[in-house]
């Protein structure tokens, strides 16, 4: 759910996704379901956390969505062919838990704002 990832600094990045006609999150009305937008934010966060770990010479570990807060969706939801633009900010990080805030827009219209926590496995965690 991410086509493009753009690193800005350790606390900020941007990402993009052009919704393909066969995107698995397209609902009946031909629009991306809310969970699809959340997955887009989660994968943006994962890309950012992974990028920073690689820059620091650490291995990239599996991440999980810890929780989602203050999610506000503003219809109409994106459709096939639309491009999502997301701005992500790392709000805080404690150990392997990262709290991010995200704003996703289509054609400069905000469709989602939310906060999300990602918990990353520690290196060497048994799977």
């Amino acid at each position, binding site marked *: 759910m991410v086509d493009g990832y753009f690193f800005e600094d350790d606390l900020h990045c941007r990402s993009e996704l052009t919704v393909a006609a066969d995107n698995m999150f397209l609902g009946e009305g031909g629009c991306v379901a809310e969970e699809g937008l959340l997955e887009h934010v989660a994968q943006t966060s994962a890309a950012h956390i992974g990028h920073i770990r690689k820059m620091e010479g650490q291995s990239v570990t599996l991440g999980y969505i810890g929780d989602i807060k203050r999610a506000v969706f503003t219809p109409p939801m994106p459709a096939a062919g639309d491009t999502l633009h997301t701005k992500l900010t790392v709000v805080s990080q404690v150990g392997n838990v990262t709290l991010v805030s995200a704003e996703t827009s289509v054609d400069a219209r905000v469709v989602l704002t939310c906060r999300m*926590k990602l*918990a990353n496995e520690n290196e060497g965690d048994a799977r």
Partner: protein
Amino acid sequence: MEKDEMIKKMVEILADEFEVDAETIQPEANIKETMHLDSLSLVDMVALVNEEFGVEIKTPDLPTIKTFTDLYDYVFTRM
């Protein structure tokens, strides 16, 4: 901001964010037990303190912050 003022504000925002009774937030009470914090919600407390008081709680310092008095002292000395 005076320390008393900071403590009053801290109690208000913590009680609101973690949905606990402000009376339970006593100076010598254990933070994690009082606010039922796990590793996920601990991040919320760190973010809240940073956003409201401009103080970043460093991860290595977290084990030293057990009671609310520890938190008040940590934040006040860094404001």
